[in-house]
């Protein structure tokens, strides 16, 4: 893909994020800001998951565990070493990446459904370890995380400032994800996604690249965990167990894992749908289940992929196949 075209694909996300950043100008409620911050931290993890699932074709059902590693790393660093937010960020990202590698090496020896089960099991295992970790992990009660988040001397604990900071991190995650998608590394990952055997026959070290993609997604998850921990001020194992992992996978599938807008759409939709429609958790799960079935059957590229395709067909009159080619980065056009 030419650089101009590649940049054009990033522009809508940047415009949407700029508008999202402008939301505080409308004096939104603190409830909205709070939910948006939680959604934003999820979106950062989703951008990592989109690299793994959307580009490499590997679905992790234990991704919340990687977020948890980042969150617990930040909390333990703050408690035991007095390490603040900004130092915790790279360390927690590294910790999540290392954990992803440890999980990835044995898990990626198996493929497909087995990998999904393995990541799910590792996620559960982490929750069990945290729950039974005694005072070190705070056991089932979890850990408090104290200390203000400051940036150039400004206290970022204020809800609006924290919101803007999270939007900035989401933007960075989107740009990083876009850069990966449009790099030779991204093309390699997509080659593996499309045909592992063919990729291997071309000299691509499939196993190493799959682990690499998992590690990259761990970095995103670790950063997400630090932001979440400092926002909530308290973390516990239940926040990073199987259900949150399933929700992350659900968000990325509903939004669309292959397009840069997908994680953003999925994160916002799943966070705000119960709020807008006043759904209780049971109703929400039913709606998400129906959405997931609909997306898998009707919109394989997710909601955003479907919308883009529909818009192209509606406005440019392009035939379906051509619209599909335009909607997602294609190896033929690289």
């Amino acid at each position, binding site marked *: 893909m030419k650089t101009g075209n590649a940049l054009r694909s990033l*522009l*809508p996300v940047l*415009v*949407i994020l700029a*508008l*999202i950043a*402008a*939301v505080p100008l*409308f*004096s*939104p*409620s*603190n*409830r*909205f*800001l*709070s*939910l*948006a911050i*939680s959604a934003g931290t999820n979106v950062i993890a989703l951008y990592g998951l989109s690299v793994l699932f959307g580009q490499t074709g590997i679905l992790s059902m234990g991704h919340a565990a990687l977020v948890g590693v980042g969150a617990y790393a930040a909390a333990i660093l703050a408690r035991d070493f007095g390490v603040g937010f900004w130092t915790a960020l790279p360390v927690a990202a590294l910790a999540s990446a290392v954990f992803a590698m440890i999980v990835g090496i044995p898990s990626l020896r198996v493929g497909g459904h087995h990998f999904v089960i393995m990541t799910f099991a590792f996620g559960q295992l982490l929750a069990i370890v945290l*729950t039974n970790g005694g005072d070190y992990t705070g*056991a*089932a*009660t*979890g850990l*408090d995380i104290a200390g203000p988040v400051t940036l150039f001397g400004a206290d970022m604990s204020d*809800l609006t400032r924290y919101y803007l900071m999270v939007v900035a991190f989401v933007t960075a995650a989107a740009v990083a994800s876009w850069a990966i998608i449009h790099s030779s590394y991204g093309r390699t990952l997509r080659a593996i996604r499309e045909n592992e055997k063919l990729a291997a026959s071309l000299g691509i070290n499939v196993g190493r690249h799959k682990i690499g993609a998992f590690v990259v997604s761990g970095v995103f998850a670790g950063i997400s965990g630090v932001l979440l921990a400092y*926002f*909530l*001020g*308290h973390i*516990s194992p*239940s*926040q990073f167990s199987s259900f949150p992992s399933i929700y992350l996978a659900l968000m990325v599938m509903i939004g669309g894992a292959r397009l840069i807008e997908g994680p953003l759409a999925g994160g916002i939709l799943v*966070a705000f749908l*119960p709020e807008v429609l006043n759904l*209780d*958790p*049971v109703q929400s799960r039913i709606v998400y289940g129906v959405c997931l079935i609909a997306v898998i059957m009707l919109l394989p590229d997710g909601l955003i992929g479907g919308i883009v395709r529909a*818009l192209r067909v509606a*406005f440019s009159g392009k035939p379906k196949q051509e619209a599909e080619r335009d909607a997602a980065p294609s190896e033929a056009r690289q």
Partner: protein
Amino acid sequence: MKTVLKLAASAALCLGAFAHPAFAEDNIVKIGVVAAESGSFVSAGHTLPAGVGLAVKQINDAGGFKVGGKTYKLEMVKRDDRTDIATAIAATQELVRDVKVQAIFGSETHDFTLAMAKITQPAKIIHFAGNSTLAKILNPDSVKPGGEDHYLFQSEPQEFQRSGSTARGVLSLLEPLLGFKPKKSVMIVGNDATGQFLSSYYYKALKAEGQDVPDIIFYPPDTTDFSPFLTRAKSLNPDIIHFWYNGDSTLTALPQALELGAAKSYFLFGVDPGIWKEKQLSADVPVAMSCVPVCWGESSNPKAKAYFDAYFAAGAPHGVTSSVSLLYHDYVHFLVEAWQKADSFDPDKTVEALLNLHHQGVVSDDLTFNPTHQVTHATEVCAAAPGGAISCAMQQPPAEAPKS
């Protein structure tokens, strides 16, 4: 691109529509409730707004209350946390910053309460929560003026008191029904934050009462097949199996235990005898039940009947843990009395008044907060004999925590 811009602009406008300015009337005092009215904790969650709502109605029907020569009425603003921490935090942010409540009640989930306190305490909002696990953070340093939890109050006794009172009640009621003094107990406990915390105290309480407790068996919170845990418990030949702490899980486990004949008697924490009767449960061995803090199906507390008649008449459902509402109902009255005594809504003066008052509540005629913001009162235990007769008792809690 135009379409994208239009869509994005529409989205931003829609999101902006969430904004709604705080509204306050001169003679209305708003108090917030954050509780799980849906999701996995709904059983206990719905009791919070029901208990607080009843107290608000009672106070308003009595003409309100006077502070600074002016009469005020209460308004309850409740928010469903959907048993989700992100929603609980958003609800707390909304109540504190947008609605500008004077006090917050909830949540019933320990982790959520700790995260909520990070918002309520810097904002100097009086915060009542019925989690005995708050003992982990309520200490002389944290509750002193300027301390990080100065405005946080625990409306449930310290766990060594609740566990001690419960253990004494269970053993005293089961002994005559068994016809011998029970000596060996096994605990089966849900393995989550609350379960781990509660069981550590109840274990000590049983030991302090002379029980041999060879094992604490933890089960995953969403367990439905208890047979592996019950088989293990049965192998220890216990006189009593003590089920902690989720009433719904306990009611799932009990029939399996009875079928297996796992013990000579059972104790079900957090199951009201009212539910025992409504579900027409029966057992061929004695079964003790405890309520947090007073039972509605049968009670030795003289004020309980009038309270629960009003509680259920207001529309609250009969639940396993309906009595949890009393961990909040009494404290709305207590708080109003504190405001009246302080003659001010100033949070520091309110805290001072709360610490100096002796309040006559339903749970106890003498509700007081200790210097670390925790109450003391007994916990009611009832026991169903194999024939179906139910008897109840409230044993006073120990004055001090057991040493071991």
